[in-house]
């Protein structure tokens, strides 16, 4: 089935000031659509963590959200450096965040596990030196 609506937001590496805009724009959109608020909250958390991972760990990328009748599918894609060991990265508490990011309260190693916990379906792919792609699906009811 084709999506009803899709939006795409660019995410810039290292931009902590604007980091979070994609998820707040998406939140606004979902509220306008009248999506149930507890579901908006889960989408918000997942999208924000994925967005901040692009800001903190990658050279830049984008977030794309496709909205269907009954679900949202979010793709967070960046152009590298990729994750060498995905299993390790998925562990709670594992983090390679820089000191700067840690000072801003990131780097708890909770982002990826939180994304997985917030979503109904979760897929992650990565190739070192090329890309990281996270795809999640959250159903509306």
């Amino acid at each position, binding site marked *: 089935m084709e999506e009803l*609506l899709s939006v795409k937001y660019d995410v810039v590496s290292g931009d902590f000031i604007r980091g979070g805009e994609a998820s707040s724009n998406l*939140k606004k*959109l979902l*509220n*306008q659509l009248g999506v149930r608020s507890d579901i*908006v*909250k889960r989408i*918000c*958390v997942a999208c924000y963590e994925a967005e901040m991972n692009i800001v903190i760990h990658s050279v830049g990328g984008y977030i794309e959200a496709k909205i269907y009748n009954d679900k949202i599918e979010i793709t967070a894609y960046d152009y590298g450096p990729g994750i060498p060991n995905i299993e390790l990265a998925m562990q709670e508490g594992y983090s390679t965040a820089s000191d700067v990011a840690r000072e801003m309260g990131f780097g708890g190693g909770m982002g990826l596990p939180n994304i997985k916990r917030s979503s109904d379906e979760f897929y992650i792919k990565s190739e070192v030196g090329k890309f990281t792609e996270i795809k999640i699906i959250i159903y509306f009811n």
Partner: protein
Amino acid sequence: MKQLFHSVALISEKCIGCTKCMMNCPVEAIRVKGGKAVIYNEKCIDCGECIKVCPYGAHISIKNSLDDIQRYKKKIAIPSVTLYSQFGKNVEPDVINEGLLKLGFDEVFDITFSCDIASETLKKDLERVEKPAISTLCPTVVRLVETEYPSLVGHLVKMLTPIEISALIIREKYKEMGYKNEDVGIFFLTPCPSWVTKISEISKNENIRINGAIPISDIYPKLLKHIKGRADDKNSFISRTGLMWAYSGGQCEAIGIENSISVDGIKNVIKVLNDVENGRLDDIDYIEAMACPNGCLGGLLLVENPYNAERITKNLNSKIDFTYKIHDFSDIESKLVSDEESSEHRDTQKISTNFESAVKMIKSMNKIINMLPGTDCGLCGSPSCKAFAEDVAKGLASLKDCKFLNEGGFNNEG
């Protein structure tokens, strides 16, 4: 939609359509139509920013006056705790309360007692709501959460505010003394328009009915006459921890919640709520969020500047070592947690009741946004190009209103 009354209103004749209020409204609740500002009631959170920024005095706050208390046999004042910081540091609260009696009140209720009760219920509340708990003392913050952050409604604490607790105690007391409810007039001396609105909402419940709100700035000159030259060296009977509720951070200080955030100023509150929604603050216990700079001491209807007022409050506090020891409030406790679903999901952002038509509207909105310059000039009467696109999609504005689209751009190249 339940709540339609707002204390913030517009005097149309004074408005020249300058767009200042529209551009400063933190929730984009104002438009300019036909050269006059219009407040969208369902979006307004009564923060009073428009009253602050309007150079022509066109935005006002609806309020009560001292004349209104005459309608009641028993006239009771509940002063906001902020009142005691408005007359300099050598004026004792007792002197101020005596002044209020001279203005015609029969009783001045000690709100610091209710603050101490609220502190106790708040402690329990922290366990009862989603983490981080969000304070409900400021009605503007509550409305902001309900309208813009519906997913955070479950974080709002359920306690009654000190103002409601006071009204509850007064109503019970006078009922026991044999008064009819309608003969007892309770008036809140308010620091802000936000509480004027809140009082009109809670007055529907006769057990905590408050009959009106009188701005502190309005009674200030009259009160000053009774206070001038009256120094008092004996300390007032008032609670130190209760007084702390006046300034930003004071609730946490009074209760001793350490793992908390105290945020003041509506724009800062918005930033913090965004972080709560993104899940960044899940490990924090309590967020004391107040719409005004330095909490209620920054209320629009006060006289003293909020920072000197804090100094005065703290100075007063340093001389008092009394607090109400609230061990047993079980008799009123059951009534303290707001019973009716007072906080509700207002869904004011939802653009259509039907999912599919909402999708259509958003699509047309996105098309319109792409045609607009993105300069947010405000000449169309909407606060931003995005808001304008939404207004057009909703049928509240017409594409013809955009100067950029219709006059060949701002430079008149065409």
